């Protein structure tokens, strides 16, 4: 399929970017899932795609892992074009999908053997690798047990090692901690870090949980409505707020009213306001007199300030600051659209 364009194997060199995404656009009918997205991922980097459901994270991942074709633009992985050289790209990558890729009626070993045998790996090497991988995720004891009887945590570990069978240079992780308990989430995160540290694997991870992005990623691209709205390290992203002379205030007002909230919103210095519960308000304000004006405004409306806190920005605040809405807000609204896209009729798709 791909042998038409021969690309020399040494196109990947040290320090180069491992993945180069160029003007990637994907449309499903009239719906634009990805809108002219470009970014580079360095070799050996853990790169995060952060955004609500339906923002275009999974679409980006599916296109990069050759499972979907871009409508416009392209991407190079290890120097190979994802459309023209898809078979070469597939040799370099592994994908941990949101869905668990495994057969319930096969044992752990049989599952890994089946998927491993689709790559050109000599069978003795494959046997050894399967044993090592199962050992790595503490599933050796269960290797001859049907996967259908596994717990969610065990299945997710299986799902991860399945993607490692071909020792990929690039690993894609689509919501790797979704639906896992905190302990399993920690395990997966540690495992991914270890993999990156010891094997130098380049990792792209999509997530909508801030913790994952914060703890895991070297750099984070914040995606909303199919566009990259910011791309930087976690620290630098947070500086977008604090460095820009912005302050995050958490106010405790026991007699909070809608009128009071509205007043806060209309203040010149206030960028965004979000109500956390019946008494707490979180707001991002700008300028040197931010404190004063906010306090004055609350007082003028008869609000009692029980507590006031100047807090460190989180990625959540960054997202709010950049997009004007919360991750959760749009996540809830966009779920049906995501479904529509994934199971939509193929005929309607424009390539």
């Amino acid at each position: 399929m791909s042998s038409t364009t021969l690309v020399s194997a040494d196109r990947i060199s040290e320090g180069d970017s491992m993945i180069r995404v160029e003007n990637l656009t994907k449309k499903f009918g009239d719906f634009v899932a990805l809108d002219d997205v470009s970014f580079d991922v360095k070799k050996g980097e853990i790169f995060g795609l952060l955004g609500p459901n339906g923002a275009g994270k999974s679409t980006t991942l599916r296109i990069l892992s050759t499972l979907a074709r871009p409508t416009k633009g392209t991407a190079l992985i290890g120097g190979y074009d994802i459309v023209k050289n898809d078979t070469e790209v597939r040799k370099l990558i592994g994908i941990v999908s949101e869905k668990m890729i495994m057969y319930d009626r096969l044992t752990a070993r049989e599952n890994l053997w089946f998927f491993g045998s689709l790559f050109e790996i000599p069978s003795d090497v494959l046997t050894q690798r399967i044993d090592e991988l199962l050992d790595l995720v503490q599933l050796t004891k269960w290797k001859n047990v049907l996967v259908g009887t596994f717990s969610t945590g065990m299945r997710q570990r299986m799902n991860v090692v399945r993607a490692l069978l071909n020792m990929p240079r690039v690993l894609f992780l689509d919501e790797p901690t979704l639906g896992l308990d905190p302990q399993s989430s920690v395990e997966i995160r540690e495992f991914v870090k270890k993999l990156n540290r010891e094997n130098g694997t380049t990792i792209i991870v999509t997530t909508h949980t801030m913790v994952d992005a914060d703890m895991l990623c070297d750099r984070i691209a914040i995606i909303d409505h199919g566009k990259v709205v910011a791309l930087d390290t976690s620290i630098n992203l947070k500086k977008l707020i604090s460095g820009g002379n912005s302050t995050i205030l958490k106010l405790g007002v026991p007699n909070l009213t809608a009128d009071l909230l509205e007043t806060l919103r209309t203040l010149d210095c206030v960028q965004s306001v979000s109500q956390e519960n019946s008494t707490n308000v979180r707001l991002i304000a700008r300028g040197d007199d931010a404190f004063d004006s906010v306090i004055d405004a609350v007082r003028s409306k008869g609000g009692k300030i029980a507590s006031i806190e100047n807090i460190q920005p989180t990625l959540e605040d960054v997202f709010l600051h950049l997009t004007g809405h919360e991750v959760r807000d749009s996540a809830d609204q966009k779920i049906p659209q995501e479904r529509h896209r994934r199971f939509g009729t193929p005929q309607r798709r424009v390539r």
Partner: protein
Amino acid sequence: MRLMGARTLLSHSFRIAWKDVLELYRNKLGLVLLIVMPLFMMAMVGFIYPTSGSSVSNQPIAIVNSDAGYNNSMIASQTFTSVLQQINSKTDTMKLTTASSAADIKNLIQRGDIEGGIVIPSNFSASLASGKQGTVVIITDQSNPQVSATIETLLSSVFSEMNTMIAQQKVQALGITANDSLATVQPFKVKMQGVVPGVPNYFDFVAPGIMAMVVMMSVMTGLPAAISQEKEIGTMDGMMVAPINRLSIILGKTLGQTVRGLFQGLIILVLAVGLFGVTIQGSILLVFGLLLLGVFSFVGLGIVITSFAKDQQTATMLMMTLMFPMMFLSGIFFPIQQMPWYMQDISKVLPLTYASTALRKVMVLGAGIPDITTELTILIVFGVVMTAIAVPVFRRMMTR
């Protein structure tokens, strides 16, 4: 280089097929159903469908003899009744009772006590004696056409027996010996002889068709279901991200389904021979060769449907819609020759028709390859055309 590509393509397909067979083997309930389904099918068509008129037995039929006689002789109607009883006693088709009048018969039919009636009119003897035809009236339950056909068949054999008797008496009166009289009256006689020895039963007719149907349908329904299921649970992505040819996925899935289909075919064959007394005249190898060819001719259609159906449910529904006309129009249960011409035309475009015809020729008539070249050619052409359509459609579906 090309050869290497073909070999890896095949080796990947075998791995996918092996995985599918292993999954099937682990599914114990599925395995049991694989055996039970053809068993039900065979039993159903074998025992429910009437094989011929003689399968109907003990139909309650009433007789009314209102013959007034001729010169105080009621010999004609008495002979009719006794010949009728004599012939009926061989087959037990009817359970004869007597009724008082035609009106009584109608009453009894409406009440459901009897299925039909025979009325000998009052002028029966008189007509015969005066050289006219003797008429017998059949009253039937119109809601059950089968019964009137049965009675009619039986009565015509009664009349032909009586005709022969009367004619024999007449020629004997002319001085011809009793032995020669039959040849004089009926110089011609029919003797049935088949191509193969023995009397084929309905199972012999239906078993090859069911085999062809079950094997092809199992591939045709199994393929879309298997592929859309893998798409739904996400395992398809696992195969798609491997550096393998897209064709090996479809080829592997087809192989897996073919193994399943042929296994079912084998079960039907064993059941047909062991339980239903079917004898196979031709070569078993040719039988399985034909089944494989049948699968090949259908796979393309299965792939096209797979590519269009979004999910497993839609795929199954689509297949069911196509399956029913094929089941009844391909001459599996009823001979095509009995259908109206427009239905015969439809059945001529269905590949299943040719597969089951060829299979029947081989199994029942002991035909060899030279005898079924027409069917073979049509199946091959159909398969090649469908595959040529299916492969590009499938490729488009896989990378969207």
